[in-house]
């Protein structure tokens, strides 16, 4: 069978849903971060798959994937700094405990 763009999009869809479920179900803040990484990787798979299978998107898809990787690395650095700061202040990484702003 021939591998078409739909098969790569299916992998991206499964990774996206896994990331969304991971963000929703994890109580550890670092687990939520892992869900965000999964969602960004799903978007990257879609970008590179379209870059392969759409001739007008050859370089653009890969450039967008590179920018996504850079932004994901920056996001992980900032989010981990925030999580460590939260852990220093509250001695927990449970996202249910982050209710200082609750009215």
């Amino acid at each position, binding site marked *: 069978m*021939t*591998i*078409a*763009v*739909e*098969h*790569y*999009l*299916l*992998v991206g*869809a*499964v*990774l996206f849903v*896994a990331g969304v*479920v*991971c963000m*929703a*179900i*994890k*109580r*550890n803040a*670092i*687990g939520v*971060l*892992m*869900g965000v*990484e*999964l969602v960004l*990787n799903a978007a*990257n*798979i879609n970008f*590179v798959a379209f*870059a*392969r*299978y*759409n*001739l*007008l998107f*050859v*370089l653009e898809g*890969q*450039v967008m*994937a*590179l920018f996504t*990787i*850079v932004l*994901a*690395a*920056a996001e992980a*650095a*900032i989010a*981990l*700094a925030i*999580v*460590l700061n939260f*852990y*220093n*202040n509250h001695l927990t*990484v*449970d996202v249910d405990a982050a209710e200082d702003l609750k009215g």
Partner: protein
Amino acid sequence: MSAEALFFWLLAVTTMGCAIAVVVTQNIVRAAVWLLFTLGGVAGLFFLLGADFVGATQIMVYVGGTLVLIVFGVMLTAQSPFVTMRAGAGEWGLTLVVGGVLVGLLAGVLFLSPWTGPQSDSAAPQSRSVALGSDPARSQTVRDLGLVLLGIREVHPNGSIPVPIRDADNNPQSVPRREIGYLLPFELASVHLVVVLVAAAYLARARRRTGSPSS
């Protein structure tokens, strides 16, 4: 089954299984290890798609950088009640139902949608090697990516993008050359990284919580 299909299904099943294992595992350290395999599988899919530079960047930045950062975050916060924090059974049931419906919806939409427009000829296998680079003999994408990040597009002798566009009669067509590259987003990403590094160093600086003796 061709070699491409064999490698695709191998990598796809590995990637999807490890991504689901990230979700269902209760131990945060094991979730980090499953995430490592997921990112490696995604890098393999990139190589399979002919994006060698993006795949190498995925391995270096994600597996070598971001995942090490996450593992450090896990280690710095791995007190015994936080390593295995469980959600309730009702939350699991609701989340699995919503996730199953969402993945079914996405799969149905993407398999029912026509992805091959008139400007793409993904059915012709010989055009794929052309699509990987401007020169069929040079399949590496590093040079093209570097040039386009510097704002330069490859110039074809007849002034068109060196990608063959075929019309309905399968005759090669040329589209007008677009000269604008990605220099401005590239520089914005550079400045963004500097700002993020300064902000991360500011946020995560050594500071004891209030009330405890400073060290």
